[in-house]
């Protein structure tokens, strides 16, 4: 890989709570190359959002970076001052939140919001900025962009609002766009369109994308590489096609088989993952997934495995796919009863 655009190295985040210290990101390292589209997948509480926010210095004040380096485009984000961070965000880094309704200002016309962003970061006169705004709305697939500039956010549908948020995120020719669950609030038929608009418009501008989602289906449809997070740790990473076809970590494999599909064989009983993700204030010793893992052995409960390149954080990983070979089918874990699945506490 050429010089990475974003390099996160040994990131540790801590939140002090009455229950103890919560660690949403524990020794997390990854890099994103210029123009690369990367997916970060994990369940709620896995730490994916905090990790992503910290990479642009937007983590809430209570969430402290305790260790690690974050280098974006050669600059150390962790030590950057507020003024420099503000120039980065919106300028070199665009951010798309889950809910555009809250991200957009409800009392300003859509056009004003895009034009303001453009003028704040690039020294443009009003007319040029307006022209750019029209082109941006067109780029994200908004019909009649000139007319839409005059609309207030509430006059647009959820899908259109999210497209406007994407237009703002890509407006200043960013080198990286971070999108956190950008389509979760949208209808199925609109989801595919919006995520396509996001990735397509970013790729056209040569921007890299970090797409955060709980949905492996969505990640698999648009990303080059996938990072899987569980309980504050990165546990698997690799080319997206490989991760979804031949997952090597039992958690990734279990996530894939636990998702009911609209095509193919239909299992009478879903292979659910028993229990639930651990409390980030009290993660288990050894492998954090071991208590829920169908393949856990003694070593897994004693020593914690660590991610190493394409080798997953697992003592007994599933085999790496042979080049050109058939995908390895997931082994069927033994059938569990509803009670076992609930991991009764």
């Amino acid at each position, binding site marked *: 890989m050429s010089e990475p655009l974003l390099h996160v190295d040994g990131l540790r985040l801590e939140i002090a709570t009455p229950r103890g210290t919560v660690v949403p990101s524990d020794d997390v390292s990854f890099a994103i190359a210029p123009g690369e589209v990367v997916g970060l997948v994990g369940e709620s509480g896995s730490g994916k959002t905090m990790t992503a926010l910290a990479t642009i210095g937007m983590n809430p004040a209570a969430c402290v970076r305790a260790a690690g380096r974050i280098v974006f485009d050669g600059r150390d984000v962790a030590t950057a001052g507020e003024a420099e961070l503000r120039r980065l965000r919106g300028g070199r880094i665009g951010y798309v939140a889950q809910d555009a309704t809250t991200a957009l200002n409800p009392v300003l016309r859509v056009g004003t919001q895009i034009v303001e962003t453009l003028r704040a970061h690039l020294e443009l006169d009003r007319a040029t900025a307006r022209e750019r705004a029209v082109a941006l709305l067109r780029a994200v697939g908004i019909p009649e962009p000139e007319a839409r500039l005059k609309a207030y956010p509430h006059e647009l*549908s959820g899908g259109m609002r999210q497209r406007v948020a994407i237009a703002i995120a890509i407006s200043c020719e960013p080198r990286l766009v971070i999108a956190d669950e950008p389509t979760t609030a949208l209808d199925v038929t609109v989801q595919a369109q919006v995520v396509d608009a996001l990735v397509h418009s970013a790729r056209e501008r040569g921007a890299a994308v970090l797409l955060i989602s709980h949905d492996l289906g969505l990640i698999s449809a648009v990303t080059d590489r996938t990072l899987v997070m569980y309980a504050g740790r990165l546990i698997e990473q690799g080319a997206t096609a490989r991760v979804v076809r031949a997952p090597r970590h039992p958690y990734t494999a279990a996530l894939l088989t*636990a998702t009911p599909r*609209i095509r193919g064989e239909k299992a009478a009983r879903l292979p659910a993952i028993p229990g639930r993700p651990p409390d980030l204030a009290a993660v288990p010793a050894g492998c954090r997934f071991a208590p829920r893992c169908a393949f856990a052995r003694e070593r897994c409960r004693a020593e914690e495995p660590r991610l190493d390149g394409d080798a997953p954080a697992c003592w007994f990983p599933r085999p790496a796919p042979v080049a050109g070979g058939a995908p390895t089918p997931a082994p069927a874990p033994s059938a569990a009863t509803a009670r076992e699945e609930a991991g009764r*506490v």
Partner: protein
Amino acid sequence: MSEAPLLEADRLVRHFRTPQGRVQAVDGVSLTIGRGEAVALVGESGSGKSTLARMLVCLDRPTGGTLRFGEHDLTRGRGPGLRAVRRRVSMVFQDPYASLDGHLSIGRSVEEPMLIHRIGTADERAAKVAELLDAVGLDPEMADRRPAALSGGQRQRVAIARAIALDPELVVLDEPVSALDVSVQAQVLNLLADLRERYGLAYLFVSHDLGVVRHVAERTAVMQLGRIVEQGPTEQLFAQPRHPYTIALLSSAMEIGADERRIALEGEPPSPLRPPSGCRFRTRCFRADAICAEADPALEEEGGRGVACHHPGPLAARELAGRT
């Protein structure tokens, strides 16, 4: 289904008056649910699926059509039949954080339906609460806890325990797993399957998630702007959708290994305030022509399947050509 259906809705209508005009949330929907049958209702937001579900459990009253549950006519939404029916039908809502009273222990929440219907002595109810918590995979020892101490998946289990407390015949589930993580969602879906088998429950399962629907329902009805546009046995409907809307819906699901050539719908769902003339799907349809703007297609039933379209049929190769 030779015997009379458990629930029978005939040309059910629900209009709402708003400052902007009349919204036809549900506009002439006919639906039956047999005893022990699992039926799914799918559609986008604004399709009317939740309004329909609420009418079926008497949380809302139809403005037209008829609704029968067993021998009771529920169309008026009152009368002696209503209380009897409320014991036989229950509902599970989407958000387990909002549907449970935070001040009540979870045992009390599960007991409440029995208290309201004056069922059993205190001891009998306590025993039943323990049995119900056990049935949904929770430790009966947890009965004293408040919802705040529970995870989302556990809360939804409590909501399900409460919904089956009166031994209902039909449970209406409105997006019951969409707030849950994948790993927990699979557990709750398995639980619902177990309970259905154990208690002979019928389900009306409202969801936008097609994978989930395929997993739980024997029959599926697809709703669009207040109408059922296609319905039939789930496996057939998913394998060979015939309405262009169903085709697009299935095609836009981003699933691993899915065909990347999606049938992207043009534009936005129209406002329910101003549905298009003729077929309500025509403004986004890839098959629409002149007749679609003129005549409103009726749901034509044949061999257990129904489709409301002037140009029904499986996706042709030429329709897929040139799409990305």
